[in-house]
């Protein structure tokens, strides 16, 4: 089994640190966000989550049989993630954003760039790049999601899971997903696929940092 996961961690570590140490992210993790900015962040997240499965499906449809194991992994992952945009919609309703506003929201340029890049990378670059998207989103959720949800609950005086169910549940759920992702990444042994995954992770960290920055 390859040690590609370790390689991915090292090659993307500065991008992860750049996300973690961005002043807006630092402030959000330390002190939470004002209500309006949290609403905007959830609206942006809604689009990221909504496009997650179609991006994964695009990648799965283009994977060669050599990466059959990745395709099966994506099938299972899509099954698990199916309907999670509803969780974001519920959180938005809990903080005062009706469903009609959520559907009518036009995502920011950075969200469109993130989603657009992930479609392009899956279809035109290398389908394994979808694993870079997964890595970034799961790192953000499992490492930073918990502290961020705590900060939001404290700053907005939210009770229980109300308003933070998506972020909080993914902080826990993606912890298990990280181990699954490491196992599947270890099966990717060709250099082109590995490089595509690293590139996608770097792009996703970069764009996600800007998504949070602009809210």
């Amino acid at each position: 089994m390859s040690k590609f996961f370790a390689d991915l961690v090292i090659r993307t570590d500065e991008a992860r640190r750049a996300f973690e140490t961005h002043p807006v992210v630092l402030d959000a993790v330390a002190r939470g966000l004002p209500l309006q900015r949290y609403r905007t962040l959830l609206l942006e997240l809604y689009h990221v989550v909504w496009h997650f499965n179609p991006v994964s499906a695009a990648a799965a449809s283009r994977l060669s049989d050599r990466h059959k194991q990745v395709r099966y992994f994506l099938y299972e992952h899509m099954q698990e993630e199916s309907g999670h945009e509803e969780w974001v919609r519920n959180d938005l309703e809990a903080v005062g954003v009706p469903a009609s506003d959520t559907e009518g929201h036009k995502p920011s340029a950075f969200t469109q760039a993130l989603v657009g890049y992930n479609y392009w990378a899956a279809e035109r670059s290398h389908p394994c790049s979808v694993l870079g998207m997964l890595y970034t989103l799961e790192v953000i959720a499992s490492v930073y999601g918990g502290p961020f949800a705590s900060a939001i609950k404290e700053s907005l005086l939210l009770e229980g899971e109300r308003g933070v169910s998506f972020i909080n549940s993914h902080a826990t759920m993606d912890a298990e997903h990280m181990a699954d992702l490491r196992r599947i990444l270890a099966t990717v042994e060709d250099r082109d696929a590995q490089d595509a995954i690293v590139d996608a992770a770097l792009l996703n960290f970069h764009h996600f940092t800007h998504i949070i920055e602009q809210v």
Partner: protein
Amino acid sequence: MTTDAPVRNGVPALLARPYKYLRLEWTAELGMLRVRTCVKPIQCYSLAGLAEMQRVLDDIAANPGLVRHLVLSSDVTGVFNFGGDLALFVLLVRAQDIDSLKMYGRRCIDLVWWLEHAALRGVHTTVLVQGDTLGGGLESVLPFHKVIFERSAQAGFPEVLFNLFPGMGAWPLTIRKAGFAVAKDMILSGRLYTADQLLRRSLVDAVVDDGTGEEAILEVVRSVEPRLRGTLAALNAQRIAAPVSYESLLAVVESWAETALTLTTRDLKLMERLARAQVRKAGGAEEGAVEEIKRIELDTAWGELRSGNTGFGEERGTGLTAWGAL
């Protein structure tokens, strides 16, 4: 090699590289290389920071005779070093990635190993701690020949609070400097110590008033310089007399990585609490990880009181910070 070597950006050209997390300064007449760490905003041993530090040490080793004094300090006000990159640990533990945890540990002990052999390389090492230094941050100062703390600096090994232990040299280096009992107490208690308490435990060589650390460094370097060869020979003999083997450091790293994999969600949440406190301090808040550790200790102490576990010895929990001890 002499100190007349060509200089670029104020540093001998042989050592001058474009560093992102380190700032180098050179004093030619003393052969003194100052390394100031600035892993901003969260001052910790990130992978990139470790790589840059290793590069500096490799350059020193590749140019014997050029650097006679290596001095480390922090460029971040109020923080020397928070130790390991907690977010990276959380990531690797959640991914159950023992290979990467071991890799991180090996990178740390490679620095320790270099510093352990600094005298053999003709280099006297001094470290100045001017703020909080926790876990790996404290571990990293122990291999230095001369350890100076400013009076308000606080340090400790809080890892036990989240069911881990410091695995990159804390045990052998603390035992060598302060004895087994002190090492055991510090590592198993998770307590924080003031600079004076660390001085009394022989982990620190000098405590100076706040704001006078820079003068203290020069005093040390100037006092060692005329008798450098003898001092280094003696320090090398000390290493021979009380050796620390790379194999033992590596074995502890392996044990540390295996233990890290067993951390529970509760342990990781405590780690996240500390990480969040570090973030608050980096954002300019008065309180940071040190205050959070005190809160966690208090929580634990209250838990012990409620459960009736107030005994002493190995079974006890972390208890209160030993502010009044010694």
